[in-house]
């Protein structure tokens, strides 16, 4: 069995598990005439040994780094986090089996006539849509094999490279590609055709041909700057099953050789097997050898980044109008003086540590509170590349920390974000569909005392009970058990704002008239909540904490103007009415004497007539005049 990553669960709607997606909190605006600033870059991580302990680690950011910088005032010196990284591309060739077997229904449910081919196509389509958003510099090619027609540069039979106008075979995905690909099933039926590639009497080996075509396509680009992958989707676990004798072993040998050649060229081969309803896909029949070629090497992809910004900034001296270079001095008002800092002094001030990760000690995990968090965490994995022996130390510490339930406290002295961090050991977690959590450590950025607020510690000054009674807690427990998300996993929701954002973009790019309906998966399941069991639990809890007649009481409270502020307003309105009566307003207005009255007096009128009291004196007067109809 090959690496876990090459198993696709049929229920998954997309290929997302394979893509390394940079995150999006907010879709970044791009000026049409300019380009985006990069969304993400990884921190530089030099590893100089500290006197007591030294390790060399390789570090990758597991999630986004908020591009807001701690030190935004000096915009050039320390913006390491905003600096752009060279995009590393990925080239992918999808090899889709188009043999008739793929068009058999994928499940036994006869009604749902979804074929494996359909599943494969919608997976790829999903993946393309994700890719065009996240990694649009990556290039893809979609290649069908076991087809009747052929279309490929080598003119090999049984292989059809799907393509659209204005695009090379292996190229960046375009809106047109996605659109036409959505209709590919029809095209395939009509124009491309499907046939069993390797028949008993076949001389052509379509699998071999497909590998050859894919490899030729992936000749593009340097292996140093890009990752190359072949992704094969098939439900045929025994492609040479119909052949016997020497021809079979010969074909197997040449095919494996072909795959190995590709491998030697740095192309990784992945298999997405689809199981037949009553027939598990048996990888060991043939494909295990092919995947096995891949070894345990796991390609570590680097996330891509944006590109340069074409806005220009200029500094102008307000006194002389002279155009300045980047100003060398910055000032801060203090004790009614302007204290001057040179940029050099500022960076010296910020340089408190030499940019390493320094161990300070260990603490029990319980010391890491839920509110000790500022930013997404960073993942750390050992590497022996620079310092041999690092991995061993790392593993030993990792194990000890897990065993003793401790995390390491360290100081991460990057020049832009020097911060205390907690290093939490993460045990590897795997499931049937592959690695869920890789082994390593998570670096959690800790707040300083300056960053922590203590709002919840506001004392309540009344005699009412603040803590729930046993009975109330018990009712709450029942509720907790009722509304239990058993299988909750953090990434089960797609971001509805993003989905909509890209849905709209896609519609606009493809000139579709209708805006797509995006389902907001984050909405609570109100239907489930209204089921009797849950509804009762909620009701009981409500009665336990709120009392029987809560609804009426709260309604009564709402109508009654409560609170000191409301009371104050009421009193003020009453006095205003009283005071207001002391003036002959029409007369004052008539004779233009309103402006001789004070603002306070004018406000009596306004308050008494429930008009706004904001603005300058002239505004007040004109408001009064308007109100009196003058």
């Amino acid at each position, binding site marked *: 069995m090959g690496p876990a990553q090459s198993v696709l669960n049929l229920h998954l709607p997309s290929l997302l598990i394979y893509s*390394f*997606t940079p*995150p999006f909190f907010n879709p970044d605006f791009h000026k*049409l*005439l300019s380009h985006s600033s990069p969304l993400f870059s990884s921190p*530089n991580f*030099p*590893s100089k040994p500290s006197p*007591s*302990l*030294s390790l060399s680690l390789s570090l990758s950011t*597991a999630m986004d780094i908020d591009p807001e910088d*701690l*030190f935004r*005032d000096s915009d050039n010196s320390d913006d390491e986090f905003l*600096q752009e990284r060279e995009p590393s591309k990925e080239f992918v060739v999808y090899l889709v089996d188009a043999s008739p077997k793929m068009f058999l229904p994928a499940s036994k449910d006869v009604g749902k006539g979804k074929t494996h081919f359909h599943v494969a196509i919608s997976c790829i389509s999903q993946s393309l849509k994700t890719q*065009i958003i996240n990694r649009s510099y990556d290039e893809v090619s979609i290649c069908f094999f076991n087809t009747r027609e052929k279309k490929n540069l080598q003119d090999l039979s049984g292989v059809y490279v799907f393509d659209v106008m204005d695009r090379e075979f292996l190229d*960046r995905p375009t809106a047109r590609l996605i659109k036409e690909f959505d209709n590919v099933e029809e095209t395939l039926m009509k124009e491309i055709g499907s046939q069993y590639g390797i028949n008993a009497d076949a001389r052509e080996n379509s699998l071999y041909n497909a590998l050859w075509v894919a490899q030729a396509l992936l000749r593009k680009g340097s292996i140093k700057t890009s990752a190359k992958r072949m992704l094969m989707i098939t439900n045929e676990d025994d492609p040479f099953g119909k052949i016997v004798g020497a021809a079979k072993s010969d074909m197997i040998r040449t095919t494996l050789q072909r795959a190995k050649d590709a491998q030697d060229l740095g192309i990784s081969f992945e298999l997405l097997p689809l199981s037949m309803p009553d027939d598990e896909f048996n990888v060991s029949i043939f494909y295990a050898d092919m995947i096995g070629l891949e070894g*345990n090497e*796991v390609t570590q992809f680097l996330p891509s980044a944006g590109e340069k910004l074409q806005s*220009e900034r200029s500094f102008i001296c307000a006194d*002389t109008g002279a155009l300045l270079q980047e100003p060398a*001095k*910055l000032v*801060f008002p203090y004790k009614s003086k302007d204290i001057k800092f040179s940029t050099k002094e500022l960076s010296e*001030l*910020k340089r*408190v540590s030499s940019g390493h990760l320094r*161990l300070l000690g260990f603490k*029990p995990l319980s010391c890491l509170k839920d509110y000790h968090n500022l*930013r*997404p*965490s960073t993942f750390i994995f050992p590497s022996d590349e*620079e310092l*041999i022996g690092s991995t*061993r130390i790392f*593993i030993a510490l990792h194990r000890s920390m897990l065993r*003793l339930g401790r995390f390491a406290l360290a100081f991460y002295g990057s020049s832009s974000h*020097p911060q205390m961090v907690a290093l939490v050991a993460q045990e*590897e977690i795997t499931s049937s569909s592959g690695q869920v*959590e890789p*082994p*390593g450590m998570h670096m959690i950025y800790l*707040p*300083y005392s*300056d960053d922590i607020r*203590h709002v*919840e510690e*506001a004392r309540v000054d009344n005699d009412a*009970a603040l803590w729930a*009674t046993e009975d109330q807690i018990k009712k709450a427990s029942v509720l907790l058990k009722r509304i239990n*998300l058993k299988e*909750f996993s*953090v990434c089960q929701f797609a971001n509805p*704002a993003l989905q*909509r954002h890209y849905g709209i973009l896609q519609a606009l790019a493809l000139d579709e008239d209708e805006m797509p309906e995006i389902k907001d998966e984050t909405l*609570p399941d109100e239907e489930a909540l209204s089921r009797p069991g849950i*509804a009762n639990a*909620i009701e009981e809890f409500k009665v336990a904490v709120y*009392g029987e007649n809560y609804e009426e009481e709260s309604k009564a409270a709402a109508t009654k103007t409560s609170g000191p502020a409301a009371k104050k307003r009421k009193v003020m309105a009453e006095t205003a009415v009283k005071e207001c009566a002391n003036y002959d307003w029409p007369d004052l207005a008539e004779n233009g004497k309103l402006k001789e009255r004070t603002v306070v007096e004018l406000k009596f009128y306004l308050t008494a007539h429930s008009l706004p009291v904001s603005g300058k004196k002239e505004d007040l007067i004109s408001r009064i005049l308007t109100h009196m109809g003058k």
Partner: protein
Amino acid sequence: MHGVLPEIETFCSMLVQKKLIYSKTDEVGIVFFGTEDTNNELEVEVGGYEHVFVQRKIEVVNGHMVEDLQNLPRGTTFGDFMDAIVVGMDMLIKKYGPTNKGKQRLCLITDARHPIKDPDEGTKEDQVDTISSMMKARGVRMDCLIVREKLDGNANKSIVDENDRLLNHFSSRTFAKTIYVGRSTSLLGAVRTRNISPVTIYRGDLELSPAMKIKVWVYKKTSQERLPTLKKYSDKAPPTDKFATHEVKVDFEYKSIEDPNKVVPPEQRIKGYRYGPQVVPISLNEWEAVRFKPDKSVKLLGFTDASNIMRHYYMKEVNVFIPEPGNSKAILAVSALARAMKEMNKVAILRCVWRNGQGSVVVGVLSPNISSQENIPDSFYFNVLPFAEDIREFQFPSFSSFPSSQQPTVEQQEAADNLVKMLDLKPSGGEEALLPDFTPNPILMRFYHVLELKSRNPDADVPPVDRCLKRILEPDSEFLSQNKPTIDRFGSQFELKENPKKKKSSKRHWRDRQLTSNEDGETAKDDRSEIRNSNVTNDSSAVKVDKIGNSTPVQDFNAMMARRDSPEWVSRALREMKNYINDILENSYEGDTFLKAVDCLEALRRGCILEQEPKEFNQFLFDLYEKWKNTDLVSFFELVSSKNITLISKTEAEDSDIMDDKAKIFLPKSKPSSQ
């Protein structure tokens, strides 16, 4: 108490300094107690209250206070904190009367180790009660900071206990908070020195279901405090101009990529989003019509086991949900839920839209925060969780798949276990060291410090990192020496050596990226390497080099210096070269980049002589030396010296003010290695 006074000086002056920066109109009074002298109105009026010295009456914060607090008197008597509290209250009452309710605060700093006097009538507890009710009536809050490094033998345990009990009595009676600190570093972070009035980000219902809602207020729990924004300063105005603002205006211009001279005015710009190779233009109005607009609400999706939410999925700064103040039903409902969640080890998953018009929703995890004090209600912490799009699924090899040469042996594992056990920052029963809640931001601390220094002397240099702050940045040396055997054993168990075969590791790769990306206006690296390749095959003059790359920095520099199509190139080349040298030095690992840096430095020097810009080079070298002289990079300068790279002297370039004989002695430490 005298032992910690230096840290208390830092702490108190910081308190006033921050007020000078963030809330200039705050009013502060200073009272010392345990002093030899007595100076307070109560002593005059009613007698007693000796050794309480009002250093400054309550007045608007000013620089003198900082100085006062930096020179605390070393008293001669035991401090009586109760007297001090009374004097402080008296000052507040006399100054403000019934006004400013809720805005007054006493900050008591004491070690509370010495007995306090018995009151004239009643018990000490009665006295606390009387004072408490007075404080409560006037809305005076109190922060008690009790400083105890270690209880030595001199301290009388029963007195200490009594004092602690009295002070805690305050907390239970009033709006008082008592904090115990041991280490001087925690002292600096123990009390919030800057008051930010909390602002809710949401007030409204926490909706369990349409039928059941709890009124809550949501605040930020953590929010990264940044260095205050500094204004840009222009010194272009003539010094005689008294009305010069010295302000700098920043102008943004958008230029088309094809024609960099063409400025595109705002009306010709439209926002566009990238979609693959295409950019889809869309006007704001159009966008407004179609974009995602959820309604303001906070809804429960369900409860789940706390273990389902891994700690590292917390994405952002943390919020806190508190029940609507004054709403006793909401308080009970939150309390019941929080306690049930705590008992069952569950968390709640919420979907939040904090305000109307917000373009996105947030899904996050609500965890219980059970109050330990009777007059504080229970609350929740809320952490944002990632969406499917936010997750990067990296695959890494299992540790078990590594060869045995990379697996720890039993002895090694034992050494590691011991290390983790011994380097314990939270010894059982002891104080937790470096608790985030008590650890100040060293950079902000340094900024305030330098600000104060500069306010006295504008030319003051940035001082080295304070001893107190070092404990945040580096392991405590005392702590390390206590555990020396464990550390040594750990060190001897493992062997680390540099990889000799390291060709171009991925890390180096990263560094290269970093370097190239530091240059402005860069193009993709592919293009650049192509340029460079053609550079080699054609001739360096054929292709115009416009930046210094990592592979042939010296050639690039020379090529740029030689460009004559714009006078800017020389200054740009000089600037980039300096940055480059700086960068590779900064990123050097055991001097691996030194030779390259020396080559570059030599090229820079040659260039500066050619262009007759000696000062550029001299200043740079000087700065470089200043910057690194106290680090391990100092060995670089020994190399520089040995290569005979000196400052540019007057004979080499007329503009230099370095005499020939001085040029050589500048970088002295070419001393033979001392070992």
